[in-house]
């Protein structure tokens, strides 16, 4: 069979552009990257506000009861160091709410606000129009009305809220839960040699003085367990958490392992962590930190 050079050339001239074209399209397609920003803190602020407007704080939706606000502010307010988040508590983030009576300028506030050391981003803030229920007696009649009020909800995203949520998830799912930890400006002694302070650090404790809170503490807390050395606390009752502190550089992977209380946990042996998980019954959360 005789080869026709002209036909071969034309075949190549047609085929090569077709192949190149496929490559070109592939390069264009793969060069785009999709970025998805969840904005879950913004969404959470709306959800939390809606939750609070329908919570036991109100007599009917968006109409607050002054006596319940007074009681909540006293019981859950920051003045007594409570940091409670009643009625609409999110897990990964925390809320702080402030209700203002627009006629008398009186305010009631409670919830959690992080200390600067653990806060990740600016809080997402949302303001909702609301009312405060007023009842009274006039000659010949008993009447109800509302006073204008404003409810401002702040959603705070902090390393403490994320870590406590990790512990709660680990306890609920009975699995090892993990998250990436950015740098928290806490310095702990690194195991040497040479023994020196780390650039970043994470610590958590349920202090004896505040048994329903989990707190991040300063490195000196180990030798002097004073409340002054508790840097940031969140109200998280009913989860047993083993005291933990460790230093790291820049970034770390934090794991929460639900184990039978008292179990010895070797955090260096990551593969073995799953086998230590307490699938049922009582469990305490042990944190493990792996520098990245």
């Amino acid at each position: 069979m005789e080869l026709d050079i002209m036909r071969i050339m034309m075949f190549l001239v047609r085929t090569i552009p077709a192949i190149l074209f496929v490559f070109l399209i592939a390069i264009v397609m793969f060069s785009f990257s999709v970025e998805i920003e969840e904005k879950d803190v913004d969404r959470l602020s709306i959800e939390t506000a809606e939750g609070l407007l329908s919570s036991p704080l109100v007599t009917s939706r968006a109409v607050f009861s002054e006596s319940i606000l007074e009681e909540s502010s006293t019981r859950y307010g920051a003045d007594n160091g409570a940091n409670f988040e009643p009625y609409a508590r999110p897990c990964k983030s925390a809320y702080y709410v402030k209700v203002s009576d627009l006629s008398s300028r009186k305010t009631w506030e409670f919830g959690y606000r992080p200390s600067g050391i653990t806060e990740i981003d600016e809080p997402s803030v949302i303001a909702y129009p609301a009312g405060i229920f007023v009842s009274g007696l006039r000659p010949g009649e008993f009447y109800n009305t509302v006073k204008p009020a404003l409810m401002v909800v702040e959603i705070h995203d902090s390393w403490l809220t994320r870590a406590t949520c990790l512990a709660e998830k680990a306890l609920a799912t009975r699995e090892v839960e993990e998250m990436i930890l950015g740098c928290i400006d806490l310095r702990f002694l690194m195991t040497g040699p040479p023994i020196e302070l780390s650039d970043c650090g994470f610590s958590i404790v349920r202090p004896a003085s505040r048994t329903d809170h989990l707190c991040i503490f300063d490195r000196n807390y180990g030798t002097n367990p004073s409340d002054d050395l508790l840097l940031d606390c969140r109200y998280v009752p009913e989860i047993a958490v083993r005291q933990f502190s460790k230093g790291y550089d820049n970034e770390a992977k934090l794991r929460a392992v639900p184990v039978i209380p008292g179990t010895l946990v070797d955090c260096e042996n990551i593969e073995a962590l799953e086998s230590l998980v307490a699938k049922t019954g009582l469990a305490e959360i042990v944190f493990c930190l792996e520098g990245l």
Partner: protein
Amino acid sequence: MIKGIITPMAVTMIVLVVFVMVSIAVIFLSLYARFSFSGVSPVAYTIDFVDITNKPYSVAEVLTNYRIGDRQFLEHSLESTVMGKLTTSEVKGGLVELLDTYNFRFYSVEIKKGEEIIYSSDINRPGRSRIQRCGNGFEGLCVLEFMSSLKPAGPCGVGFIEIDPGDNDCPIDLAISSDSACCLFSPERYPDEGVGNFEIVRCGASFNGICNPLACQPTTVRINDDDLCRDANSGGTTICCQFLEESLEESVISATATIPIFYKGESGTIEVTVG
């Protein structure tokens, strides 16, 4: 060569030409998508949570518990849907007293029986009015003629001209029975139209504002005049106002809650709009 048959050479040429053209088109599209020539990437898509959506429902809940005079607002609404009219004048004052304290950009409360508006609190005030479009292509903006402070500058303000609203006329405000003018921002045509007594004096750090008398109309925003308005038009236009499409769009973000009301076979709705 047989007539009507394309030669292999011609086919090859066509393939090459198509390849080159499509490649150029793909490269251009790729560059266009990668670099934002208009400030916004054509392949970017953002979802923002607009909290305004839920606010009218809170206001509506508050209103149903709110007492005006000797009865709740809900009772006034029920009565007006049955009677076909509002029998007391104190509702308007009561609503304004409550809703003004929230400091919304815009609010409106309407009581309706079917499509008929029995009562509307739609009060256009500088800085807090809902922007309504007019003109055949919705190119104009409705401005209430009651805003007498703008009268020396024509019905629309300095830099604006009045245009024919065409089929999309501005509604008459029910609360104050005032007509609206259909206005178009056109500093180029303003001097030729012979409206108002004031000349256009540019103001602001980038000269992007125009000096106006007394107050900025709702379709503009007040900016720092950079001392350029103080003596403008012999001191008659001391306020620097900037027309911004973005601020206009922002000002029309509003949401409405509709609450059905029933009484012995009669029905109506309360519509609360907040922006």
